């Protein structure tokens, strides 16, 4: 890749990958891709490729992590050694541990964990290929995988980032833009409750930029939310006919 300079990021209002300032990268979502997990999702967000598996609710191990009034939520964000240009050590880095924590905290308000006290819900986010904004894509994938696992949730959580490149606000920064840009602000959002569940920022915004950026992020989280719903519906629309054929017969046992 040729060496870019900050001035290259935005030329005549067009970014290095051909997007305008308020365009998202192309997103593809797939639900239920893993057989052994209780719920799973695969998400491509630009060049990011992320696989998410959810297990649970299941017995909490070791037992002392179990909480008496709700389920323990465990989250592991991990980048594969081959996910970045220079080989990454597979051991969890400081950055990955932090991202695991913020993703967990972004999802916790959505999960009705009090329905399953003393159990644990485990979320595994594997970044297979990374290109900036992977924590947001990870949150989007994890929401889908949680819903796919049949875990009760208040809402799906959608996330996207807003940044600043060449002095201008830009949506959904790629890795190159993040490194050469002036700011990056990931936002996770629950549209039904109009609540922000994650808000981080590095770099600097003016007050006005921050306000406009947050609005832009929220607006695009709503777009992503719609895609998440479509991905779930697509997976289950077929299964929906089952109940019609079944006439809602209650479960029974046969001895």
């Amino acid at each position: 890749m040729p060496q870019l300079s900050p001035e290259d990021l935005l030329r005549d209002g067009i970014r290095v990958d051909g997007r305008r300032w308020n365009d998202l990268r192309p997103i593809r979502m797939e639900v239920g891709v893993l057989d052994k997990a209780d719920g799973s999702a695969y998400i491509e967000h630009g060049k990011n490729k992320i696989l998410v598996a959810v297990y649970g609710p299941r017995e909490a191990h070791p037992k002392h992590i179990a909480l008496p009034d709700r389920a323990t939520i465990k989250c592991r964000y991990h980048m594969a050694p081959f996910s970045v240009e220079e080989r990454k050590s597979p051991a969890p880095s400081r950055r990955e541990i932090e991202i695991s924590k913020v993703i967990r905290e972004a999802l916790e308000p959505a999960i009705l964990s009090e329905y399953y006290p003393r159990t644990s819900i485990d979320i595994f986010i594997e970044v297979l290929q990374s290109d900036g904004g992977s924590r947001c894509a990870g949150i989007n994938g994890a929401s889908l995988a949680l819903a796919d696992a049949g875990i009760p949730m208040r809402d799906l959580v959608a996330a996207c980032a807003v940044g600043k490149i060449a002095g201008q606000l830009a949506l959904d920064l790629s890795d190159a833009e993040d490194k050469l840009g002036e700011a990056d602000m990931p936002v996770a959002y629950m549209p039904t409750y109009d609540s922000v569940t994650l808000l981080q920022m590095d770099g600097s915004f003016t007050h006005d930029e921050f306000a406009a950026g947050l609005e832009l992020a929220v607006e695009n989280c709503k777009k992503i939310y719609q895609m998440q719903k479509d991905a779930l519906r697509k997976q289950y629309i077929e299964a929906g006919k089952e109940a019609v054929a079944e006439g809602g017969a209650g479960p029974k046992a046969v001895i």
Partner: protein
Amino acid sequence: MGVPLFVNRRDVVTPGDLLAEGEFQPGENALREGNRIYASKVGLVDVEGDRISVVPLKGCYFPKPGDLVIGRIVEAGLTGWEVDIFAPYPALLPMSETYTRGHASKTDLSTIFSTGDLVMAKVIAFDRTRDPLLTLKGPGLGKAFGNRLVRISPIKIPRLIGRKGSMINMLKRETGCRITVGQNGIVLVSGRDDKSERVAVEAIYRIEREAHTQGLTDGIEEMMRRELGR
């Protein structure tokens, strides 16, 4: 009722979808937030009177008093057994809930059921704060036997049984196997020979996979006749 309902019966909804506003009651997998009722799982809407609920399309087994389940003995304790019922919680089977005579303190419980044994049991109590309690007292309950254990999603169990047992009875008839189904998604299959068992197990997995298709009973019947060469 002149109150707004935002969905139709059997619509597929996702968590956070607004179901209704006003004088509705949230049923299963629905929750009330102020004046509004939202879905909490992916599933199909069901409206009964003023009760609005979501029939889930996926999910783990969650014990309910009265359920008949197949469990596996994990450990024999001093007064009872710990049983894995394939739920988020381990179940307890006290010796007083079996037909065994004698006193628990004088008996080595592992001589009655030991690790790995299967039991058909009924859930008698469960309220999330304590682990589910099982009983073996009741018709058809007790030690369960089977040559093959199949685990499917508990949500697909109604489909495996079929309307008035049509599917399961057809499976039994065609393969000649004894098939035991627990509400927790465990199915035990025993037959005269290896082949009929294999065909039955294959059919059970296919029912789980293709639960949504119509005319499945006929398709499975045809498949089994072909496989069994009749």
